[in-house]
């Protein structure tokens, strides 16, 4: 898998957003968003606060279904098999088994480190001790946390630092081998060192899993993403190779945002 940032042929899409509208009650938060999320690449969503990037991200695992009054229109087609994530007859739980998420604030369960990592497996009915242990170790290694916690797997997750907690949450998301990972500003609560560790992990992981990341931090998008989408007031203004968005965007508003003229 190469990570070249060229504009030429469009890589195969993992997911295709088609004319997506989203409503919180009567308030429209997304307006006719269409975009392709390429397979096993890092796609970043940038834009000022309240522009709808987190809303868009949370459509991918149907998180909005947890709250009453939310409504989708349009579709997100997930490959392979071309299932429409947003279709009424698609079970959101099935989608969440394929697409995992790392949240803005680290949110480990108040349980042991081990129980945190294996929770997704337990939910899937796996209870074989050695299988759980093997997968927990692998997930924690993938999340670059194993060496720090291997001697206290049964200690409380809240004894970890914020950065470690966030990597634990990443491990929890990786343990079930997701096809796609959603990151919702995963480093906004972390210090610069913890941030750079998460960014390294994102870059390593993209050979295995499609990554969609929402970030406030434009430098972060520039550092880690292959594709960037700029959102503004519920609309996807422009999307393209990260380099192009940050150097020669087509739209005036994108230009203004990435050069720091607003936002």
């Amino acid at each position, binding site marked *: 898998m190469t990570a070249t940032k060229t504009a030429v042929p469009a890589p195969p899409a993992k997911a295709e957003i088609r004319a997506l509208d989203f409503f919180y009650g009567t308030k429209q938060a997304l307006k006719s968003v269409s975009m392709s999320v390429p397979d096993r690449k890092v796609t970043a969503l940038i834009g000022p606060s309240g522009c709808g990037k987190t809303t868009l991200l949370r459509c991918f*695992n149907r998180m909005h279904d947890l709250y009453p009054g939310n409504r989708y229109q349009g579709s997100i087609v997930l490959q392979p098999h071309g299932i429409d994530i947003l279709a009424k007859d698609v079970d959101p739980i099935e989608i969440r088994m394929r697409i995992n998420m790392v949240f803005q604030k680290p*949110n480990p369960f108040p349980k042991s480190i081990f129980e945190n990592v294996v929770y997704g497996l337990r939910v899937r009915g796996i209870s074989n001790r050695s299988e759980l242990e093997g997968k927990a170790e692998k997930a924690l290694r993938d999340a670059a946390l194993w060496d720090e916690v291997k001697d206290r797997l049964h200690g409380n997750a809240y004894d970890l630092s914020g950065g470690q907690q966030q990597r634990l949450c990443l491990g929890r998301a990786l343990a079930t081998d997701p096809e796609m990972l959603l990151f919702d500003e995963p480093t906004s609560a972390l210090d610069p060192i913890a941030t750079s560790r998460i960014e390294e992990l994102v870059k390593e992981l993209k050979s295995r899993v499609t990554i969609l990341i929402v970030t406030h931090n434009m430098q972060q998008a520039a550092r880690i993403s292959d594709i960037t989408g700029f959102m503004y007031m519920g609309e996807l203004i422009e999307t393209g190779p990260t380099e192009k968005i940050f150097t020669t965007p087509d739209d005036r508003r994108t230009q203004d945002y990435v050069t720091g003229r607003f936002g």
Partner: protein
Amino acid sequence: MNEALRRRLRRAKAFDKAFGVMGLLLTAAAIVCLGALLWDLAKDGLAIIDLSFLSSFPSRNAGKAGILSAWVGSLLVLFVTACSAVPLGVAAGVYLEEYAPKNKLTTLIEINIANLAGVPSIVYGLLALGVFVYRLGLGPSVQTAGLTLALLILPMVIITTREAIRAIPQSIREAAYAVGATKWQVTRDHVVPYSMGGIITGVIIGLSRAFGETAPLITVGALTFIAFLPPAPVTPAAPFVNFDWLRSPFTVLPIQMFNWVSRPQAAFHLNAAAAGLVLMGLALSMNAVGIAVRYRHRKRIRW
């Protein structure tokens, strides 16, 4: 800083201090009252409490009278109350917080539960007399008493369960849903375990209230003089358990106390004080268990 501002600050600080002192005095007054009450009971009753007081039936002779049937009755009634109110109350609380849609009907139910918590206990007694004793034919028995008190504390259990559940951050639920958990898995693995401290505290406070209730039990026909114990719940022969005690007549500690207080002889008043002391001791130790559980739980769960 100019003089006027400095004067203002001094006044504000003086007020701070005055409020602190006043708070301390009021708290002290409450504790002194409780202490005086205990001392008053202990002065009369402590000398009477011994093994034979705890293991004797009531008697016409004040010196021989004991509280055996009363404390056994209290414990059995409380057991029935706990067995019925806790599962029902916790399930209702979980349902209302996690499952119920937010609509007019659930709002109406919520308001009603809050109001039920304020209904005088004697009213529950009347309800129980009509429904349990007569309509369902349960008679003036341990099961009737237990169910009556269960009704009484049910709103309390539901309300504390809901508050404990509401204290769980939404981000924890989202974390569980995000890895593919169903609502039931989220409830079983996260919501209930994390709110257990609050739930247990609520249950124990509810039970200690039920423990001291008198009026509704008199209404459903508790006896004031009972010189035998209900059949033992555990038997030496198969099937080893016996539910006959549920249908047995009963009395409880506060009723025994009330009975003794209403006698003319002073010796019985001393017995009442001793029974009061036992009642207080048990209620306070139940509260202590509640506090200990909450403390342990808070230490274990942080976010």
